[in-house]
Structures are given as C-alpha cells and as structure tokens.
C-alpha cells in the first residue's frame, strides 16, 4: 500500500520527534507535576502566583507585547515597500534582511551590549558631538531594543509574504470602485494581510516571551524575565521541579497564542518563506 510506504518513510522523523520532542516534553510535565519525593503536586505550577514569579511573568508579557507591537509598526510599512518593488530589487533587499539572521543570535545581542555600554560606541559618538549620553543599558528599553532587533525579520517576512499574494487587480478594483488610497488600505490590503500579521505576531511574541539571553545581556541582572527565573531554577537553584512547573505555565500562554493564530490562519498562508 502506498500509505504504509509513506509511513515507513516518515519513521526517521518519528524517531527524531520522540527523542527530542515527546520525551523532553514528558519530562517537563513529569517534573513539573511532582515534588522531590515523586508524589503528584500542583505546587510547582501554582508557584507562579508568588509575588516574585508573578512579577517576572508580568514583565515578560509586557515587554514581549511591547516588542511585538513595535515590530509590527516597523515591519508593516517595510513589507509594503518590499512588496511594491520589482523582483530584482526586492530579492536583494530581502537578502539584506535575512543576512543578520545567519549570524549567531548571541553574537548579535553581545554586539548590542557593547554598543550600548556607558562608554560604548554609541555614547562615544554622542559625546563627540556634545550630545547627552544614552543610558539605556540594563533597563527594559534595552531589552525591548534587543527583542525588536532580533525578531523584526520574523515579522517582516510573513507580512511581506501575505502582501505579495494579494492580486494587484484586487487593489485596483477597490480604487476603481471609488476608494481613495487610505480607504483601499484599511478595507482591502490590511484585511487581506491578516494571516501574515497573525503569523508574524506569533513568531515574534513567543520567542520574546521565553527569552532569557536578551534580558541577561542587555538587562543586567536587575530585570528578571520569566525565562531568567526558569533558567536559574535549572542551572543555579537546581530545582528542576519548580523550573518545569513554571515552564508549563509559559507553555499555556504559548498554546493560547498558537490557538488564536490557528483560527485566523486557516490556510497556513502566512508561513515563513
């Protein structure tokens, strides 16, 4: 049977998925829902209610929402400009956009750390022109900057993808029927690009919510995101149970976001290149 042969072909992937996805996920749930004696408990999950953890979660949600919003407002006009370029121009610009993504994420973030330092490149430049220094390193602004910088391409590309799929004649039809450019944008272009927007929001919001590297490098040790809390439970406190419990909470937020995007993006149209 053709079907069984296809199943056979997919077996390497199934093995891979079991080892690297299913088993670790099972372990997270096992540790998250048990205590040190191995007895079932919801204590680790409920620990998110504690003042310290709740604060980290709210800051994480706030900063990742802000970053997602900033990304959206930067990315949409950019994607529109890209979508209106001819083929030769836009493939070059898209390349420029993807290029930094090939460089290591840690390196890029470390570069920002150096740039933003009190005596870093940016402040040296500012003082050279006798301008007041920019003191945003180790503040939430630096974290948002790092998130926006790192995740912007993930917002641009799905929106760009959705925009180039719109038949230019559909836009022309709206103008033909009397809509001015602003009406055309809000009634036609924007609604038709929603799948791309949702996909872009998911791809920025989730990594921003779970990051601990950006906050560590650009936020100093002053600002703890939920990612940092979890990381510390695993690497420093050695409390895998609490770390896993908080991870489950984070996973719930991710699932909510993905469920929302599945509703809007039924055809999977907004996927990345």
């Amino acid at each position, binding site marked *: 049977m053709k079907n069984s042969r296809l199943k056979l072909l997919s077996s390497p992937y199934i093995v891979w998925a079991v080892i690297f996805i299913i088993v670790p996920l099972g372990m997270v749930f096992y540790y998250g829902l048990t205590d040190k004696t191995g007895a079932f408990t919801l204590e680790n999950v409920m620990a998110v209610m504690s003042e310290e953890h709740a604060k980290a979660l709210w800051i994480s949600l706030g900063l990742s929402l802000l970053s997602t919003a900033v990304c959206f407002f930067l990315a949409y006009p950019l994607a529109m400009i890209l979508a209106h370029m001819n083929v030769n121009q836009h493939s070059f610009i898209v390349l420029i956009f993807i290029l930094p993504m090939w460089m290591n994420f840690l390196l890029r973030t470390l570069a920002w750390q150096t740039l933003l330092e009190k005596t870093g490149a940016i402040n040296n430049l500012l003082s050279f022109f006798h301008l007041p220094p920019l003191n945003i390193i180790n503040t939430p602004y630096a974290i948002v900057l790092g998130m926006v910088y790192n995740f912007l391409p993930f917002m641009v590309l799905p929106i760009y993808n959705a925009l180039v799929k719109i038949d230019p*004649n*559909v836009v022309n*039809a709206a103008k*033909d029927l*009397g809509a001015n450019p602003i009406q055309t944008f809000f009634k036609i272009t924007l609604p*038709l690009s929603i799948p791309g927007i949702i996909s872009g929001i998911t791809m920025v919001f989730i990594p921003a919510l779970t990051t601990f590297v950006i906050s560590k490098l650009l936020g100093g040790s002053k600002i703890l995101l939920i990612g940092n809390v979890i990381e510390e439970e695993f690497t420093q406190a050695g409390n895998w149970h609490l770390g896993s419990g908080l991870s489950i909470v984070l996973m719930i937020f991710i699932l909510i976001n993905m469920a929302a995007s599945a509703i809007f993006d039924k055809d999977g149209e907004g996927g990345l290149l």
Partner: protein
Amino acid sequence: MNKELINLVDISKAFDGETVLDELNLNIHENEFLTLLGPSGCGKTTTLRILGGFATPDKGSVIFDGKDITNLPPNKRQLNTVFQKYALFSHMNIAENIAFGLKIKNKPKTYIDDKIKYALKLVNLEGFEKRMPDSLSGGQQQRIAIARAIVNEPKVLLLDEPLGALDLKLRQDMQYELIRLKNELGITFIYVTHDQEEALTMSDTIVVMNQGYIQQIGTPETIYNEPENAFVADFIGDSNIIDAIMLEDRLVSILDTRFHCVDTGFGRNQPVDVVIRPEDVELTAPEDGILKGTVTHLIFKGVHYEMEVTANGFEWLVHSTGMFPVGTEVGIKVDPFNIQIMNKPASEDEEAAGIEE
C-alpha cells in the same frame, strides 16, 4: 451614431523604452459596444488601463464627456472595470462585494440593499448575498464582478478579457448575457479580447490593434468581409492571403492566373495582397475551374470539411460542405466579389506591424 463620449488623442506609452502605444487616436460613442481586439502585446490592455486610470500615457490626452481626465486617479472616474480573473474581495461576502462602491459613496442603506437585489437579479444570481466568493464557480464570480461594477451606474464599463478563464460553453452563454446586459443598461461597453469570435459576436465596433497601432476600425461585417490589410485578414478568421498584381480595374493576376474582381482604383500592374476566405473558395471539376489543383489534406470539422488544395505552388485553405478525397484533381473558382484586394504595406514599419509567420 450616438454622440462621442470618449476621445483618446495622440496617446503614446512606452514601458522600459519599448513602445506599446504610438500616437493612438480613438473616439468612443455613447451606448456603443466597442471591442479592442488583437494579439497579446498589441497595446489593447494598456489602452484599457489608461482609460481606467491605472496607467498614465507618456503623451496625449484622454477626454471624457468633453473634460480632460488624463491625470485623474481611478477613484474619481465615472467608469468601472471588470477585471481579468474577476478580482473579487475574498474577505467579503457577495453582498459586501457589490455594496463596496456604494458604501464608499455613503449611499443610504435601503438604497444599497435595493441595488444589491437589482444587480443580482440582473446577472441571474438572486439569493447569493451571503455566499463567499471562493464558493462560487468561475462564471458566477464573473457575474458578481459585473454586478459589483454596474451598481455604481457608470457611464462606461471596461471589461478586460472577462471571459478568458471560462470554458467554451460558458463563454458562449456569457457572450449573449453581456449583449443583453448592455442593451438593458444602455451604457457604453469597452471590451478587450484576443478572441476574434467573441469580438465578432458581441461588438458594434471592432478596433483591431497590433504592436501599438490601430489596424482597422469597423463593424464586425466590415472587419470580416473587407479587411484593410493582411494582418487584419489573418487575425480575423481563416484566410488565404496571396501576393498578386492588380492588372487593371476589376482584373487581378493571382498566381499568374487572371481573376475578375470588383475593386477599382489601384492603378495598373500594382502589387497587392489578396484575401480570399476559405468558405469563398469553390471546388469544381478540374475543367470548370479557373485554376487546377490537387487536394492534399482533408479534415472533417463538424459544420464543414476543411481541405488544403495545392494549386500553382500555393496551399489553398478551403471550407466546404462537399468533400473531395486526398489526391483528387479539382478546379478552383472564386466569385469576383469574394476577392478582397488590399494595398501592400507601404513602409518597413508597417511591414513589422503586419503578420509574422
């Protein structure tokens, strides 16, 4: 003829240095069904886009009802377009699609609802208000695209190969539908197509275009029966186009054989092109014909037989209800008024605009 509604004056347009339209002049009348006909790249779609406001001519002007609208944006023009592949708004239902133009103009709700009903009735799709465009067939989507355009009561409807994506049967039905619509609405239709049959069926006036030039303007009968040059003759229907010499008035030498014709005024011994439609070639017994030839191909086409007859080194295309088997010796006869004489292209430019074989 009704009064002139649109004048295209000396329109030129080039894309990337390539001339698409070259000093085109065209007058379009009220209540006319005018078809721009030609092969792809002839400039017909560009002409339509200039009329719709989606392209600006490099030179020349568009006069609409006496006013210059050359630089007016599409949303300010009193004409509506039915786009190739329909271009419906896929995120809106049929009623919202049709209401789009009216809502933009802030018409009252009762007026809009009446208009939607009226338009759907006109295109025979009553009760489709709540359907989504994706759930409709190609023919239905096309009707909605037309309904969406006509509710705005445009003076002119532009149609860009609207039937191109439909299958043959549906296309023929839609042709009659469009003629009916045009008569009921009493507005001007400007129709772009590369399909000569569509053009002949529906139009009051056909404008045959090639490489940015208008080749001929006329009624379907004129275009078919009296093509002005070899390009038009070749593009509209099947035809035999033969080099010939006009010996004197009413006498032409085709393939070194004298044929009587009805044309005058070409001068003596003037080289010309001759067009003879395949259905106008009569096959007879060899001794009764003006020319003798041999049947080389025979195909049954349903309505008629299609034959190729070699005579004096030329392959004659013949349509006839009578049949001669391959290899038969036949005579060829043509009635004088079925021989259409055309001037040879005067310059190389015109030659380039002619047929490429």
